[in-house]
C-alpha cells in the first residue's frame, strides 16, 4: 500500500502531490538532505569512539604506561605503585628497550619499543594475538599486527639491528595492544641481550586508574606515581587518551562539522516542510472548502494534507539513507584502517533511528497546518478569493509606498508583510543557506590554513636536497600503528646516507652516494640570488618514556622561515630547545618549560620544551630541535629563500647545475598537496553546503511560487493597468530581496559564530588547539560577499516564479481566482 493509503483522502493527497510539483520536490529534497546529513553525523559519532572503547575495555587497556629506570626503582618498589590511591590495577614491571630491526631485504624497520612479557595476559593490557603464537624462547619475537604484510609474515627472520653480529629474531606471531604499550614483544629474558647501546633496559609498568577520562585526571595519576618513586626514576609516561585520540582522529575531526551541517539540515527541513504544507493549506483553502462541502470530515482533510507531505518525505528518506551511507564510507574507511581487520559499517540503528525520527518530524511539521485545514469552516474556506482579505500588511504598504523608489519595488517590498509566517519561513531559508555557505567557506579556508601550516617547507622558494629525488625515498617500512602513510618525500623519513655511512648497512643494501652537505652549503653561499637558507633533516628519534620512534625535524641555521604555527611558547632559537606538538605533551604528560631526553644515533640530549606546535598528524607527532644538539645529524634538505625580484626557477636551475654533480638536486617547491582527511572534509563540506543551498533555494522558490499563485489575480490587475513584465519581475524580486538582505544579515554572523565554535571543537577532537591563522580566516570583504551571496540566493530562488508572473497574460491572470 502506498503512503497515501486508500480511499478518498488518498486520492485527494495523490492529486495534490501531483498538481503541486514544486512543493513535492522541495519536501523530498529537503528531507533527503536532512536524513543524509543525520546518517553521516550519527555514524561518525559512533565510529569516532566506539571501536576503540570496545577494544580498550576488552583488553583492560592501560590508562597510563610508565617507564622507569630500574637502577633507581626496583621491581618491589614498582609493584607497590600498583597499590597507590587512584590506581585500580597494575601490571609489570616488564623489561623494555628500543630496537631497530632490519628486514630480510635489508630495509630497516622503524625503531620499535620491545617489551618482555612471558604471556599476553595480565591484570592490565591483555594483548590480543591476531595470528601465530606468543614468544616462548630466545630468538622469537611477536610484532604489532600493523606490521603484518607481504614483507613481514610469520616465520620471517629479522636482525635485531644493522650491526654485523646482531642476533636473528624469528617472527612467531602478531598481536595488538589497544593501549599501544609496545610495538613488539619477546620473552623477558631476551630484553637484556637485545638492548643496544644508547637504548638501556627500562622497566615498564601499566596502570588502570580510577579516573582517567580527562588529561587532568591522567596527569593527577601520573603525579601520584611519580611521587611514590625516587626522583629521576620515572623516565616517561604515555596516556591512553593519546591512543584514543589517534584511533578516531579522522572521524573525530569531522564529527563537529558534520554534526553542524546535520543540525542545520534538520532545522531547515523542519522549517521548509512545515512552511510548504502550511502554504499548501493557505493557498488551497478553496479546495479544502469544496472537499468539506462534498462531505470530507475534518479528519479526512487532515489525513489528506499530512499524506501530501508524507509521500514526498518518504521518497526523500528512502533516497537520504543510502546517500548518507555513501557519504559515510570514506570516513569509515579511514577509521577502519586503524583497526585492521575490524570491519566498520554504518550502525544499523542509525539507519533505523534517523528515518524514524525524520518521519516523526515531517508528520509533526505537517500536522499543525493540516489540523488548521481540518478545523476551517466550510463557508469561510469556499468564500476565499471573493471576500476581502485580512488587513495584514496594509501599514507596510502605506509606509513603504512613501519610499523614493519605483512603485513596483515598494509594492514588492511590502508583500512579505501580507504573509508574515511564509515570509518568516523564507527569511529562515535564506538565513540558513547563508549560515551554511559562510560556515563552509570559513571551514574550507581553515582546512587550507591547516594544510599549509603542516607543510612549512612549501613556503620556501627553492628546495635543495643532498640526494636525487628518485633515490631519496628508502624502501617503505611497514606502517606503524595509525600511521598516516609514508613520510613526506622531502624528508624521506630516514636520515640520508651521509658520505661516511653510504652503503654501509649490514644487510648490504646499496644506496646512492649523497652530496656532502658542506659542499651544498658552499654552492648556496656562492649564488647571488640566494637571500637565506636553512638545513633540515627529517628523521626519527627516541624519547625517554615514549614507546617507539618519534618523528623529528632537526634544523641547521636560522629556521624561522620554516617554523610551524605555534599554539604557545616560541620557535627554537638555539641549542637545548625543542618544540613539540600538543599530542606529544599529552603523550608524555609534560608542559612547555619541561625537559625531555631525546636520543638520536646513540647521542642523547636533554632539551627544554620552548613551544607547542600546531600539528594534526595524528598519532605520529613531530618534534623540532636544533641539529647542533645531535652532532651525528647532517641536513638532507636545504630550504632556500631567494632575493626579491629573482625568479625562483632561475635560482633552482643554477643550484641544480652545481649540486647535481655532487649527487644532490635543486627544485622549486611544488605546491603542497592536501592530506586525505583534509580533502575529504573539503569535499564533504562542499557537498553538504551545496545540498543546504539547494534546499534553501528550493524553499524560497516554493514560497515565491505560492505567493505568486496567490497574487496572480492582483498581478493581472497590475498588468492590465500598465505594469510591464520587467516591472512585474522587479515587484516579485523586491518581495524577496528585502528578505534576502535580512536573512544575510542574520546568516553571516551566525555562520561566523558557528565556525568559531566548530573549528576549535574539531581541533579538540584530534587533541590540539587551533592557531590564529586557522581561526581568523574571514575578511570584511569576504563577509560582505557572503552576505551578498545570501541576497543572490533569495533572488535566484525567486527568479523562476518572477518570470512566470511576468509572462502570464493579463487576461489569463484576471480570469484566475
Amino acid at each position, binding site marked *: 500500500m502506498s503512503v497515501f493509503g486508500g480511499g478518498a483522502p488518498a486520492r485527494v493527497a495523490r492529486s495534490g502531490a501531483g498538481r503541486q510539483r514544486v512543493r513535492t520536490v522541495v519536501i523530498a529534497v529537503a528531507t533527503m538532505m536532512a536524513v543524509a546529513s543525520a546518517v553521516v553525523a550519527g555514524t561518525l559519532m559512533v565510529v569516532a569512539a566506539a571501536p576503540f572503547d570496545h577494544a580498550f575495555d576488552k583488553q583492560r587497556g592501560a590508562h597510563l604506561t610508565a617507564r622507569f629506570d630500574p637502577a633507581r626503582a626496583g621491581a618491589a618498589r614498582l609493584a607497590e605503585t600498583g597499590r597507590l590511591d587512584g590506581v585500580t590495577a597494575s601490571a609489570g614491571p616488564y623489561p623494555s628497550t628500543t630496537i631497530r630491526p632490519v628486514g630480510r631485504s635489508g630495509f630497516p624497520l622503524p625503531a620499535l619499543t620491545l617489551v618482555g612479557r612471558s604471556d599476553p595476559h595480565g591484570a592490565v593490557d591483555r594483548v590480543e594475538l591476531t595470528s601465530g603464537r606468543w614468544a616462548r624462547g630466545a630468538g622469537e619475537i611477536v610484532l604489532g599486527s600493523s606490521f603484518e604484510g607481504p614483507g613481514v609474515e610469520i616465520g620471517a627472520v629479522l636482525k635485531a639491528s644493522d650491526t654485523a653480529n646482531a642476533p636473528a629474531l624469528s617472527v612467531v606471531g602478531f598481536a595488538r595492544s589497544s593501549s599501544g604499550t609496545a610495538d613488539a614483544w619477546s620473552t623477558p629474558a631476551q630484553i637484556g641481550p637485545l638492548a643496544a647501546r644508547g637504548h638501556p633496559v627500562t622497566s615498564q609498568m601499566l596502570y588502570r586508574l580510577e579516573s582517567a577520562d580527562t588529561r587532568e585526571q591522567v596527569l593527577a595519576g601520573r603525579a601520584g606515581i611519580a611521587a611514590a618513586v625516587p626522583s629521576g626514576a620515572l623516565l616517561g609516561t604515555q596516556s591512553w587518551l593519546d591512543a584514543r585520540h589517534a584511533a578516531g582522529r579522522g572521524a573525530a575531526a569531522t564529527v563537529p562539522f558534520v554534526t553542524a551541517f546535520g543540525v542545520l539540515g534538520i532545522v531547515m527541513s523542519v522549517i521548509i516542510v512545515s512552511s510548504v504544507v502550511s502554504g499548501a493549506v493557505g493557498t488551497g483553502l478553496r479546495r479544502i472548502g469544496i472537499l468539506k462541502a462534498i462531505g470530507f470530515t475534518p479528519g479526512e482533510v487532515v489525513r489528506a494534507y499530512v499524506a501530501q507531505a508524507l509521500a514526498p518525505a518518504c521518497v526523500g528518506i528512502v533516497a537520504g539513507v543510502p546517500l548518507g551511507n555513501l557519504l559515510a564510507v570514506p570516513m569509515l574507511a579511514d577509521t577502519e584502517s586503524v583497526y585492521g581487520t575490524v570491519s566498520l559499517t554504518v550502525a544499523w540503528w542509525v539507519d533505523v533511528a534517523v528515518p524514524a525520527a525524520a518521519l516523526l518530524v515531517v508528520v509533526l511539521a505537517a500536522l499543525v497546518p493540516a489540523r488548521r485545514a481540518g478545523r476551517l469552516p466550510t463557508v469561510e474556506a469556499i468564500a476565499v478569493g471573493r471576500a*476581502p*482579505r485580512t*488587513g495584514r*500588511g*496594509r501599514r507596510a*504598504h*502605506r509606509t513603504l*509606498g*512613501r519610499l523614493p523608489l*519605483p*512603485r*513596483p519595488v515598494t509594492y514588492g517590498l*511590502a508583500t512579505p508583510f*501580507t504573509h508574515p509566517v511564509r515570509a518568516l519561513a523564507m527569511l529562515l531559508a535564506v538565513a540558513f543557506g547563508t549560515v551554511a555557505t559562510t560556515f563552509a567557506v570559513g571551514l574550507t579556508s581553515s582546512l587550507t590554513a591547516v594544510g599549509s601550516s603542516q607543510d612549512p617547507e612549501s613556503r620556501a622558494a627553492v628546495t635543495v636536497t643532498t640526494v636525487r629525488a628518485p633515490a631519496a625515498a628508502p624502501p617503505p617500512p611497514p606502517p606503524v600503528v595509525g600511521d598516516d602513510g609514508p613520510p613526506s618525500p622531502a624528508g624521506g623519513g630516514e636520515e640520508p646516507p651521509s658520505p661516511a655511512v653510504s652503503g654501509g648497512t649490514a644487510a648490504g643494501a646499496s644506496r646512492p652516494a649523497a652530496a656532502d652537505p658542506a659542499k651544498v652549503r658552499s654552492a648556496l653561499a656562492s649564488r647571488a640570488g640566494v637571500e637565506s637558507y636553512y638545513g633540515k633533516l627529517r628523521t626519527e628519534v627516541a624519547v625517554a618514556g615514549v614507546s617507539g620512534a618519534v618523528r623529528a625535524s632537526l634544523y641547521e641555521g636560522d629556521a624561522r622561515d620554516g617554523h610551524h604555527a605555534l599554539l604557545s611558547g616560541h620557535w627554537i632559537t638555539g641549542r637545548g630547545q625543542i618544540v613539540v606538538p600538543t599530542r606529544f605533551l599529552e603523550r608524555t604528560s609534560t608542559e612547555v618549560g619541561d625537559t625531555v631526553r631525546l636520543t638520536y644515533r646513540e647521542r642523547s640530549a636533554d632539551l627544554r620544551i620552548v613551544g607547542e606546535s600546531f600539528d594534526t598528524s595524528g598519532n605520529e607527532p613531530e618534534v623540532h630541535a636544533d641539529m647542533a644538539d645531535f652532532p651525528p645529524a647532517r641536513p638532507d634538505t636545504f630550504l632556500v629563500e631567494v632575493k626579491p625580484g629573482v625568479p625562483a626557477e632561475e635560482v633552482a636551475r643554477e643550484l641544480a647545475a652545481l649540486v647535481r654533480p655532487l649527487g644532490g638536486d635543486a627544485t622549486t617547491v611544488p605546491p603542497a598537496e592536501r592530506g586525505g582527511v583534509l580533502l575529504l572534509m573539503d569535499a564533504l563540506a562542499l557537498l553538504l553546503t551545496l545540498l543546504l543551498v539547494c534546499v534553501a533555494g528550493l524553499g524560497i522558490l516554493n514560497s515565491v511560487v505560492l505567493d505568486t499563485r496567490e497574487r496572480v*489575480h*492582483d498581478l*493581472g*490587475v*497590475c*498588468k*492590465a*493597468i*500598465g*505594469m*510591464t*513584465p*520587467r*516591472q512585474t519581475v522587479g515587484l516579485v524580486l523586491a518581495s524577496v530581496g528585502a528578505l534576502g538582505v535580512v536573512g544575510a544579515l542574520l546568516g553571516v554572523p551566525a555562520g561566523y559564530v558557528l565556525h568559531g565554535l566548530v573549528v576549535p571543537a574539531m581541533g579538540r577532537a584530534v587533541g590540539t588547539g587551533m592557531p590564529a591563522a586557522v581561526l581568523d580566516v574571514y575578511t570584511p570583504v569576504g563577509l560582505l560577499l557572503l552576505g551578498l551571496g545570501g541576497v543572490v540566493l533569495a533572488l535566484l530562488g525567486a527568479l523562476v516564479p518572477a518570470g512566470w508572473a*511576468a*509572462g502570464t*497574460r*493579463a*487576461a489569463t491572470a*484576471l480570469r484566475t481566482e
Partner: protein
Amino acid sequence: MNHVIELEGVAKRYDGAGAPALGPLTLGVAEGEALAVTGPSGSGKSTLLNLVAGLDRPTDGTVTVAGRRVDRLSEHALARFRRAHIGIAFQFFNLLDDLTVIDNIRLPAQLTGTGRRAAAARAGELMEMLGIQQHAHAYPGRLSGGERQRVGIARALINRPELLLADEPTGALDTAAGHGVRDLLRELHRGGQTIVLVTHDLALAEACASRTIHLVDGRLVLDTYARDAR
C-alpha cells in the same frame, strides 16, 4: 473621421480548429464616440474588449488603437502603451485590497514614473470629480460596490487615456449604484472621452452610448447609432 480603434478582419479562436469566439470582425470607433457592445453570454464581448485592450492577441486580423498596431506589440510595449492610452474599469472592480483608495488610483500614474505628489494631485482631482474624496485613505474592502466602481473608474482615468474600456461596469452593483455609474459614464462621454462599454444592460447602453453593436456567437449582427449621435 479620426478612429481611435480600428479592427480589420479580427478573429479569435481559443481552440485551433473550432469556430472562432469572435469574428471575423471589422470595426472602427471614432474619437469621442461611446460604443456599447451588447450580446448574450459567450457572444465574444469580453474577447473583443481584451483584444482592444491588448490583454489578449487576435488569431487573425489587425487591431489598431490610437494609431498603434497593438496586436504586434511585445508584452513590454503593450503594457507601456496600455498605461498611456487605455483605462480599464472592471465588473468586479479589481482593486488591490492592500492599497488605500488613493494608492489604488495613483498606481498607474506611478507606473509611468509620475512623481508621488503629482500622482496624488491628479488622483485628488479625480476623486473630487467622482465624489469619493472622503474615502481617499480607506481600504477598498470598506467601500460600497458603487464607490468601489468609482475608484476603479478613477484609476482608469488617472493617466488621461484616449480610450476608456468598461467591462460590465454595473454588473456587480445594485440599481442605485448602477445609476450612479451610468451618470458618471455619460458625463465622461459628454466631456469627449472615447468609451467602449461592454454590457448586458441595454438601458445602460442606451443611456451612455452614442453607438451600439450587438454580437451573437462572435459575429456582429447589429450596429446602430443613437439618434442624437447621427
